[in-house]
């Protein structure tokens, strides 16, 4: 029952995709490789990323005219298959930022941007990142302070974007900012004037982050994605996609961790019995399995809602991240406890899963933040106070 995917019903093509990804991760970036990458500033190798791109890691959300294409017509549903395998294998690489950028420009970008960026992104030759959150680390539109000013010299961007995944690997960033006080998105070259990238790390073994500071950085009008001041809906959709992929990845992380922990506990003896014959541990595992199954159901429903453009997708995204973000981290944490002392050593793999879970938990809004957003949405539906 562990190992069942988020999507129970897959086409043959999707099944083959899943198989290919899993084999690729096992062969090309096994956990020993992930350990090696811990010491490498970049966190992944470009040649490997181009190979991954050939398997479809970069193309699922991209406009078909520029090399993109989905397997099933449901782009999020396809990408969830990939995200889950990435979680299972703790694969490195800028999967999420590249796909969010590809989705955004495929949806609202000019032909000029698409031509400039999409083929290179899809081929894995370029990396573009999503620069959204600011100092406080919150992924909500009302946290935006970066501003695009209209001047005699054209549009100039000023502000600082934090927690930008793979910032140091990227040539371009999709930046969210206010123009005339309204949400706007634009692609900005990171080697242009007025742009500085500060490298950073995270608790994860391979995922690197950075801060991008813009000071009167020029924004080409044709590189605004969508209309100036009209980006709210697109930004929400990008957030929903990010949360959907992240939830699937968290499911992969937690499912795999519970799976190998159970394998370990079946064979480990104490007091003359396998430790997993002790009732209290079994009951905790039963709860974890229940949480996992519910998480898979939620992640699947969210992917579908985002693909279908359901009005309810936002609420479901908050629900899913609040639930899965919390439960996945708890599952990995309790697996550490079941594993025992060896689980808090470097030698054992579980800390790498714990790292990924801790990162994903916080990124794109923590469970606590999503739960509060959800409550506010519910509150609004009840109507004004009397």
């Amino acid at each position, binding site marked *: *029952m*562990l190992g*069942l995917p988020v999507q*129970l*019903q897959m086409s043959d093509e999707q099944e083959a995709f899943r198989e290919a990804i899993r084999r690729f991760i096992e062969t090309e970036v096994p956990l020993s490789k992930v350990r090696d990458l811990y010491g490498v500033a970049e966190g992944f190798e470009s040649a490997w990323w181009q190979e991954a791109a050939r398997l479809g890691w970069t193309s699922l959300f991209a406009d078909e005219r520029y090399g993109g294409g989905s397997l099933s017509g449901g782009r999020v549903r396809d990408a969830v298959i990939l995200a889950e395998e990435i979680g299972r294998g703790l694969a490195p690489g800028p999967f999420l930022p590249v796909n969010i950028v590809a989705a955004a420009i495929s949806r609202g970008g000019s032909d000029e941007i698409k031509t400039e960026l999409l083929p290179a992104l899809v081929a894995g030759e370029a990396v573009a990142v999503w620069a959204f959150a600011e100092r406080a680390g919150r992924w909500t539109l009302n946290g935006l302070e970066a501003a695009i000013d209209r001047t005699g010299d054209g549009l100039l961007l000023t502000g600082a974007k934090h927690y930008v995944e793979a910032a140091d690997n990227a040539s371009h960033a999709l930046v969210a900012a206010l123009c005339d006080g309204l949400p706007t998105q634009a692609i900005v070259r990171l080697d242009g004037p007025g742009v500085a990238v500060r490298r950073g790390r995270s608790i994860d073994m391979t995922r690197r982050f950075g801060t991008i500071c813009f000071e009167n950085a020029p924004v080409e009008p044709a590189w605004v994605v969508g209309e100036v001041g009209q980006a709210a809906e697109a930004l929400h959709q990008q957030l929903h996609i990010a949360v959907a992929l992240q939830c699937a990845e968290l499911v992969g992380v937690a499912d795999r961790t519970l799976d190998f922990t*159970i394998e370990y506990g*079946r064979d480990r003896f104490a007091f003359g*019995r*396998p430790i*997993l*014959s002790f*009732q209290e541990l*079994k*009951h905790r*595992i*039963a*709860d974890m*399995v*229940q949480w996992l*199954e*519910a998480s*898979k*159901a*939620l992640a*699947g*429903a969210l992917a579908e*809602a985002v693909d279908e453009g*359901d*009005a*309810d997708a936002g*609420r*479901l995204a908050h*629900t899913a991240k*609040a*639930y899965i973000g919390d439960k996945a981290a708890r599952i990995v944490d309790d697996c550490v406890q079941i594993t025992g002392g060896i689980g808090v050593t470097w030698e054992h793999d579980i800390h790498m899963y714990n790292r990924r879970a801790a990162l994903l938990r916080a990124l794109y809004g923590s469970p606590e933040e999503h*739960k*509060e957003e*959800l*409550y506010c949405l*519910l*509150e609004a*539906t*009840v109507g004004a*106070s*009397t």
Partner: protein
Amino acid sequence: MSGASGTEALSEFRRRCQNWIAANLPPKSAPAEDPVALQRLLFDSGYAGIPFPEEYGGAGLTLEHQQAFYDLAHELGRQVPSGVALMVSVGMLGPTILEHGSHEVKSRFLPGLLRGDDLWIQLLSEPRGGSDMAGARTRLVRDGDSYVLTGSKMWSTGAHQSDYGLCLARTDWEAPKHRGLSMIAVPLAPTTPGLVVQQTRSADGTMGEFCEEFFDDIVLPSENLIGEENIGWAVAQTLLFHERNAVANVGYGYIGWDQSESPAGAYEPGRVSDLIGIARQRGVDQNSSVRQLIADVFIEEAVLPLSSARVMTGMALGTHEGQWGSLLKLQESEAAIERVRAALAACGAEGVIWEGDDIELDNPGTSWLLARGGTLAGGSSEMQRNIISERLLGLPREPSVERGLSFNEVLRRQESFE
């Protein structure tokens, strides 16, 4: 479980149902129809017991056809036969008799059961037994062509309003615990000689749905045996399996979800918004604990139908076989506890104090007194966790202290302990 060849295609069946439902079932906005009357309406048009063979009164189709029927009815906003009595009778006892009964037994009992004419219940638990149902001490002795039943059962739902009970009783006391049990149908009419049925008073002071039964040498025809003598535990396990499924609203007991189209919208305007409204009215809507608890209730309620739908899909696809009902039952009954906890928090003193000399029952305090019913009945949460870990996941079993002992020996050891 998917449609065998020769079975009516789902799409075809859906079309047929759509017309019939629209023409026959009352809308949800109408006054609630008696569930048994609705069940008879379904039966008489061939829509009761959809996955049961036609020769026993069913429609000879599959669980997926049943799912399609009920989902359609909800989509069309129509009433369906619901309630505990039918859930137990049609969702639990029906499939158990179908699996273990002889052709004669099925022909005799199933049509009346599926039509709702005969309500069936289970008689498994005993006063001293708790979760250990295989420890039954009710005695069943063969006497020529009859059996004689002596003992008592407890926690039977609605026995005072039912027609038959399927009773687990011991036929061999020298066999190991699980191998000396048999299952027999007991008529529950008050006229049955030797039978006394008493309702159990609930913690809230009312007569609840549970009963206790006393059997004083009740004589039963041997044709009432369901399954062979001494394989009663297998029959009971089938029954318990269907019970968990029915409680979780999957399998034979599936009656659909009364919800709007959007999954996260399930129950939405209902209880959660009530709680938000109460919190606001009491001025605790900014209280962080209260917000937390209410948000958690919403999340659990959004997750439940999604989990159930996933298991239903998995059952149809074959990815989910076996004891998945336990997982859903656990999830559902534990979420219900949290729902009451949130109500207590939102309501504060208003949830436990009221005006007037009457004993009020519709408040969170009273719900709290009864809340554990859900995590105990139908197998306690502890039993569900045992089943999930040992049977679904295959983790090593708890070492048994009864292995290889006759039941008489088990009793002797227990008595020496007490």
